[in-house]
């Protein structure tokens, strides 16, 4: 089985976000970047599937050279080779287009990624890739088993879970607990540098450019109103919060 795992490179989830150049540029200085946490789960499950039934795992990232530490970490975790599309991942459509182009050439059985990235959280790349390739896509997949040509999945839906089956090839957006998150071991880290990392040029142009960023408003103070004093709550909602 051939698996393509798409990973994003995102700021560590505890990072303090700031902007420069009159709030038009995201300030990367001093930030630590990691593999998107949901992508990490997809990668972990892909590596498990490979260990169970053989095959290959190729990791794909759309990003500039700065993302290579995250790519090599994915190789250390167990991917066999890597492709980096040398471009800023400016918007979901552009990223999906790059993934679809690589996927068309590679003839993959599974294209896995996180349900969303944790920077811009659009959560639509898997869907667009599926459309572009004309194959089904599912998200968020919490459980995945492969039986021959069939994928058996559990997916989170509003208020419950859905069990479903579909034939390969598929595009999947994944989330925990699809696999146990993997820490790269020493052997993996030392072999990562010998695994191929191919850099390819992007195709097509980005459709968007960022004109400005803004931070969410600071959290206001919280007023506690005793439960028996509903009257003053309604009053405050009318006069102060002006939501009624």
């Amino acid at each position, binding site marked *: 089985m051939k698996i393509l795992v798409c990973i994003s490179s995102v700021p560590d989830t505890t990072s303090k976000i700031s902007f420069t150049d009159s709030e038009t540029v995201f300030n990367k200085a001093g930030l630590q970047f990691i593999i998107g946490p949901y992508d990490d789960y997809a990668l972990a499950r892909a590596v498990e599937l490979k260990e169970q039934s053989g095959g290959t795992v190729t990791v794909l990232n759309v990003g500039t050279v700065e993302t290579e530490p995250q790519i*090599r970490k994915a190789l250390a975790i167990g991917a066999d080779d890597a492709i980096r599309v040398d471009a800023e991942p400016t918007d979901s459509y552009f990223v999906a287009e790059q993934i679809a182009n690589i996927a068309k050439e590679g003839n993959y059985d599974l294209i896995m990624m996180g349900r969303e990235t944790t920077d811009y959280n659009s959560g639509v790349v898997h869907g667009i890739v599926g459309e572009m390739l004309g194959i089904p896509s599912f998200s968020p997949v919490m459980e995945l088993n492969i039986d021959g040509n069939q994928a058996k999945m559990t997916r989170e839906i509003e208020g419950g879970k859905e069990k479903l089956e579909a034939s390969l090839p598929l595009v999947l957006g994944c989330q925990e607990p699809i696999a146990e998150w993997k820490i790269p071991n020493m052997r993996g880290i030392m072999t*990562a540098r010998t695994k191929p990392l191919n850099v390819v040029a992007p195709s097509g142009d980005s459709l968007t450019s960022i004109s400005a960023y803004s931070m969410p408003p600071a959290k206001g103070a919280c007023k506690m109103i005793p439960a028996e004093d509903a009257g003053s709550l309604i009053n405050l909602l009318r006069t102060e919060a002006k939501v009624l």
Partner: protein
Amino acid sequence: MATIAEKASISGGEFLIKETEASQIFIPEEFNEEQQMIADTCRDFLRTEVWPILDEIDYAKSPELISSLMDKAGELGLLGTAVPEEYGGFGMNFNTSMLVAEVLGNGHSFSVAQSAHTGIGTLPIVYYGNEEQKQKYLPKLSSGEWKAAYCLTEPDSGSDANSGKTKAELTADGKFYKINGQKMWITNGGFADLFIVFAKIDDDKNLTCFIVEKTFGGITMNEPEKKMGIKGSDTRQIFFNDCMVPAENMLSDRQNGFKIAVNILNIGRIKLGIAAVGGSKGIVNHATNYANERKQFGISIGRFGAIKHKLAEMATRIWVSESACYRAGQNIDDLIDVLKAEGLSDENAKLKALEQFAIECAILKVHGSEVLDYAADEGVQVYGGMGFSADAPMDRAYRDSRINRIFEGTNEINRLLIVDMMLKRAMKGELDLMGPATAVAKEIMSIPDFGALDNDTAFAAEKKVLQNLKKAALMIAGAAVQKFMMKLSHEQEILMNVADMIIEIYAAESALLRLEKLVGIRGKEAVSLQNDMVQVYLQEAVAKCNNAGREAIMSFAEGDELRVMLMGLKRFTKIEPMNTKDARRRIADAMLAEGKYIF
């Protein structure tokens, strides 16, 4: 770039009489991507497997929990970093294994189990084992399939390790050594499969070392010791009753055991130093975060100068200790490379390099463990009442830190060793202390040097301060040697004073060199906080050296000699005043803004 041979041109202890170029030292900012990934793996392991169950580890009823954590660490390869690849390890260089020790140093009882296994448990075989012994034991130890313990200390033989009473007697057929005796404070004792045991054959003067498998029989043990800290570390008294050890399990030669013990402890000391740095970083992270969250008088306590002082002081000492550890680690790596190029085997090159820097190893052990104790003590203080609660992290940090000043040679033993080794090397002609010491003795009798600083040299003023501190140490050590000659070893108080000066000099110089190198890489603006830390530390180092020097001089000099030496000390412990309060506030504010240690 300096070549390895150029870089390795400094020998152990020589820092006291020789200048080091900033370009020659390694700084942790230079760790490459692969090394950082290794550090991340160690951090992720602690975060997912160890930190969530610290209480369970400390209060476990059986050693199985800590043993199973060792299995998991083994699966990740964390137990084989220093074992050569041909024996199932990863053959990493010394500074990479230091980095592993630093990160895992924040794992409390688990750290102790891990470092005992990988260090004193495994390294004797790495360095002294013959081919059969290495093939047989190292793959099992580096994978964690077997766990190791080190049996040196006995009830009546602690710091005086060579006085152990455990006996090994060759059986009549010459096939076995029968070991009888009692060992104590044996880390990992309860679950170890292999014991490195030191015993005396017949009436030998020196110890001999044996590799003892648990299954050889004749091994019994007490329940785990009840301890002040590192409660989850399984520490036992172990009894050997006619334990039959095959003769081929003698490690190295007869009576070579004490040497093995000493050399292995060298590694243990520098590793303890860097592990203490890792533990200290954990403490200051907690303390900084708490200082932001805890509000009194309507504001975060981190906004109070008294708290800022503590946070900045912790960070400064940690940064300094770290600088010194990786500087020495690289010295060791460089010398290993040179010795291997000269034809020495891997293990002999490593042993020789570690022996060469034994003085630095002892310095780092003392400095690191005292920084950790300082951080733990002030960490409790930042937490205030919560610091005294067993529900907050400072309780464990405080209790666990204390042992570090005791094991791997007490800090007192190590202080004595620092001076003793320096003097021995001087007497052997390996380290020219006499020349510089005589020059200093002359200098204090002459008119002080008012020469202007060379402004073309980076950090000229700071370097001058350090040169002078070295002169102060040489002046006092030289005078004490002249005064007491062979009886100097009876003057432990003076030796402690001199050791304190040497430790501060090495630490402060390492930090200054790291700063200078960083300025070259990142520019002065970007490292202004590191500059603050170095300047603050220099002020403290000068004050400490002045104090220790004064104590020493007053302990043996009288009359004119006393006055001349005190004046000399005053001359050599001068430093331009600065506003340390503002510098510490800048350091603390930057940490509080990020809620953690940021250097």
